[in-house]
C-alpha cells in the first residue's frame, strides 16, 4: 500500500493537516537553511558592541587562524556526510600527515608536503574501498583508521614529538600574504574549490544524488562506487592539508595530540552548517559558517570570563538545536 502523495485527493481535514505540516516544514526549512548565517551575524554584531578589541585586526587574525584547520577538515567531512557516510579518521590523518613532514623534510619542503598529502590520499582511498567496494559501514571503517593511523603516526616518530626548524616550512603556518595569514588563505581557496566541485561539477551532483537515493542513483547508471571512493579520498586529502598547516603553525609534529577530536569539531561544523546527516545535500558555505560560529561562540564566552565548562554546554546546545531543525527534514521528505 502506498501512502498518498497527492494532497488534493485527501478529504478536507487530512488535506489541511498536510498543508499545515508543509508550512511548518517550510518554516523549519528556512531556519535550517539560513539559521547558521543569522546566528553568526547576531553573534558578530553582539561582539562588535560588547566585546572590547573584538574588531581589532589581531584578534580577527587569531580567530581565523585557529578556525582554518577545522574548516578545511570539515569541507571534506561535509562531502562524506553528503553521501550519508561519516569520516572519523580525519584527526588521525592530520597526525599522520604531520608525522611524515619531519621524516621527509630533508628532501626539501615540496617533497615533504607531497608525501604528507599522499599519506592522506592513501588513507582516504583505503576508507573509500572499505566502504564502497567491500561494504563496511562508514562509521566502522573510519573508526578503525582513527585508531590505527594515530598509532602509525606515533610509530613513525618513535612515540616522540619532533620540533621543526625549517623556517621555509614553518612560514606556511605563521606567514602572511598581503596581511592575510597563509593558513586562512588556503582555507578560503579550498572552500571555493569544494563549493565549485559540489555545485557545478558532474562529480558533485553525483555525490548529492547518491546521498539522496543510492538505489535510484545505481539504477540511473551512476558510477556509485567510484564516486564514493573519490569522496573519501578527498576527505583524506583535505585532512592531510590541515595536518600540514597545523604542523607548520606549531613548528612541531606532535602525533599523540595533533588533530585529536578534530573529527568531532568537523562534524559539528558540518551539522551546524545545515548539512543533514541523512545525506543528499552538501552545504559548503554553511559548513564554513558553522565552523566560524563555533569558533566565535567559544571566543566570546572566554572573552567574557565565563568558564570553559559553560562554553562546552553552549556548544552542546547549538548542536542539539541544529540536529533538531534537521530532524523535520525526514518528515518532509518521505
Amino acid at each position: 500500500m502506498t501512502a498518498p502523495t497527492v494532497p488534493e485527493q485527501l478529504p478536507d481535514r487530512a488535506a489541511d493537516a498536510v498543508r499545515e505540516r508543509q508550512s511548518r516544514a517550510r518554516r523549519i526549512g528556512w531556519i535550517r537553511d539560513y539559521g547558521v548565517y543569522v546566528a553568526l551575524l547576531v553573534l558578530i554584531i553582539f561582539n562588535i558592541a560588547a566585546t572590547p578589541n573584538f574588531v581589532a585586526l589581531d584578534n580577527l587574525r587569531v580567530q581565523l587562524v585557529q578556525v582554518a584547520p577545522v574548516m578545511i577538515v570539515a569541507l571534506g567531512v561535509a562531502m562524506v556526510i553528503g553521501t550519508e557516510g561519516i569520516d572519523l579518521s580525519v584527526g588521525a590523518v592530520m597526525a599522520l600527515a604531520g608525522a611524515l613532514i619531519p621524516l621527509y623534510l630533508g628532501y626539501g619542503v615540496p617533497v615533504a608536503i607531497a608525501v604528507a598529502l599522499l599519506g592522506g590520499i592513501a588513507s582516504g582511498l583505503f576508507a573509500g574501498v572499505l566502504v564502497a567496494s567491500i561494504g563496511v559501514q562508514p562509521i566502522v571503517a573510519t573508526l578503525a583508521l582513527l585508531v590505527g593511523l594515530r598509532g602509525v603516526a606515533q610509530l613513525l616518530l618513535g612515540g616522540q614529538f619532533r620540533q621543526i626548524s625549517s623556517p621555509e616550512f614553518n612560514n606556511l603556518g605563521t606567514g602572511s600574504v598581503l596581511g592575510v595569514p597563509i593558513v586562512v588563505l588556503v582555507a578560503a581557496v579550498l572552500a571555493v574549490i569544494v563549493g565549485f566541485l559540489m555545485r557545478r561539477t558532474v562529480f558533485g551532483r553525483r555525490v548529492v544524488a547518491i546521498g539522496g537515493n543510492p538505489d535510484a542513483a545505481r539504477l540511473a547508471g551512476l558510477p556509485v562506487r567510484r564516486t564514493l571512493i573519490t569522496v573519501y579520498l578527498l576527505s583524506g586529502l583535505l585532512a592531510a592539508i590541515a595536518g600540514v598547516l597545523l604542523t607548520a603553525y606549531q613548528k612541531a609534529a606532535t602525533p599523540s595530540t595533533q588533530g585529536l577530536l578534530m573529527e568531532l569539531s568537523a562534524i559539528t561544523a558540518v551539522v551546524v552548517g545545515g548539512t543533514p546527516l541523512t545525506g543528499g545535500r552538501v552545504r559548503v558555505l554553511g559548513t564554513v559558517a558553522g565552523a566560524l560560529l563555533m569558533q566565535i561562540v567559544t571566543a566570546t564566552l572566554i572573552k567574557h570570563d565565563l568558564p570553559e565548562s559553560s562554553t562546552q554546554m553552549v556548544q552542546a546546545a547549538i548542536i542539539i538545536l541544529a540536529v533538531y531543525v534537521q530532524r523535520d527534514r525526514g518528515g518532509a521528505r518521505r
Partner: protein
Amino acid sequence: MSSTQPQEVSAAANVNRPVLSVRHIAKTFGGIAALADVSLELLPGQVHALVGENGAGKSTLIKVLTGVYRADAGTIEYDGAEVRFARPLDAQLAGISTIYQEINLVPLISVARNVFLGREPRNRLGLVDFRTMNAQARRLLAQVGVTVDVRRPLRSLGTGTQQMVAIARAVSTEAKVVIMDEPTSSLEPREVAKLFGVIEQLTASGIAVLYVSHKLDELYRIAQQVTVLRDGAVVHTGKISELPRLQLISHMLGRDIAQVQRQGVTAFDDRSGADPDAAEQLLDARGLSKRHQISDIDLSVAPGEIVGLGGLLGAGRSETVRAIAGATKLDAGEVRVRGRKIRNGSTAVAIGAGIALLTEDRKADGIIPGLSVRENIVLAAMPRLSKGGVVSTARQRAVVDIFMKRLRIKASSPEQKVSELSGGNQQKVLLARWLCLSPQLLLLDEPTRGIDVGAKAEVQALVAELAAEGLGVVLISSELEELIEGSDRIVALRDGRVVGELRGDAVTENALLTLLSGEPAANPDPPPEPAADVPDAAVPAADLPVPAERTKEQR
C-alpha cells in the same frame, strides 16, 4: 506426503466451532481505507488461504490479528471470547503465532535460543537453563524434521532450515493459530514439501493455519478454505475446492470473466499494428534465470512494439525487467540488443545499450527527493550535458524545458523540489529522465500506478506515441485494461516462468486469465461463454509434484 483430501474429512469432526473469528473489521490510514468490513473465520485443523493482489489488505489484516495495529471497528473473537490485543506479545501469549515472510529471528545467537527467545527455561538462580533449553529445542526441531546442532548460530543454517526454526518456535508457544505470510518465497521445492508435511502435522493436531501466498498451486495443494481480499474488502470466502482457479484470479483482479471485450477505456489506441516477426529484433533475451525469482525466461521485442508482461503478484515480472536493465545479476541467460550481447549486472552498460527502466516504486528507487525537477531529469544524462565535468545549467535547462513541455510536467519551475510534486508529475519526471537519453528500449514497470486519471491517460498516450516513433516497450501493469489495450503482444508469466503468449486478436482478458490461472485451457481462443463452471479443474494440479518442477509446456 498424503493428499489434502482425506485430511479435510478427518478434520471435519471438530470443524463446528471456529477458533478465531474476525467480524466486520475496518482500518483506515490517513483517510484511506485499508480494510473495510472484513470478516473471516478460522476453523481448527484447517488451512485457510488468504489471497489478494498488492494493496488488497492482507498485511493489514494480519497486523490487526496479531496486535500490531488496532482495528478502528469490528471485533475479534478468539477461543470463544472477544479479545483485543494491545501488542504483538499479547497475541503470541494467547496462542496466535506468526511466521513472517522475512524471518524474524536473531541470526547471531544459537538455534535453541532463537526457539525460546524471550521465554527461556530458567534454573533456580533465574539464569538460563541451557541444558533443558537445548534438549527441548532438539525435540521441537525433530518434530518438524530438522536435526541440527541447536547450539550453532542460526545464521549458519540455510534459509529453509531457518524457516523451519521459525515454525518450531511458533509451535512451541502452544499456538492454536499459526499465521504464515508467504512462507515458501525463499524455499527450495524440497523444503516446500517438508513445510507442507509440517503443516499437515499442525492441522492434524487441531491447529488452525492462516496461509498467505500468491502461488496458486500451493494454495490448492494445502488449503481447505480460501478468502479473497480486494481493495480492503472480502470478495469471496468459502471452500477452495469449490472455487476454480480462473474464478479465483478473476476475484483477485476484480474482473468479471463474463465481460472480456476490449473496452476502450485507456488512452492507448487499439494496438494491432506492429508485426513482431517482420522487423529485426530490438531486444532478444534468452534463458534469464535468477534463483527464487525467475527461471529460463525468453523475451524479445521488435522496434515499435509494445510487449506486455502479464502475471500475478510474484510471477517475476519486475524481476525480469530489472534483470534486462542490469539491476540484478543473473545466474544464467543473456541479453542482446540489436544482436549485440550486453554484459549483465551493470545498469550503466544497459543504459549505454539504450535500455531504460522505469521502476515500479517511484519513491524507493526512482526520485531523488532532495533534488530539483531539473536535476532529477538530467540525472542519467549529466555527462552528456556538461563540459569537462563541469555542469552547464543552461544546456540542462534547454533539455529540461523540452521534456517538461512535451510531458506536461506541472511544476512551479524546473528548480522546484521533485518531492513537492504530485505522484503523476513525479512519474513524468522519471520518464523524462529516461527519454532524454534517447533510449531504444523502454521497460515500464507499473507506469501508471498511483497517479491520477489525467496523468495516467497522458502517460499512456505518450507510451503509444513513443512506440510509434520506433521505440520498443515492455509494459508491466496490474490493470488488465491497460495491459491488454496497451500491448501488441502479451507474454504471460507464472511462478517465474513464461507460461504462454498472446498476440493479435487472441489478446483478451479471458485468454490472459486462463493463462495466469494455470488451468488447462481447452481452447486457446477466448470461449464465448466464461469457463466459470469447470468442474474441479484445480484438482489435477494438486497432485503435481512441486510448482518449480513444472515445465512451461504444462498448460
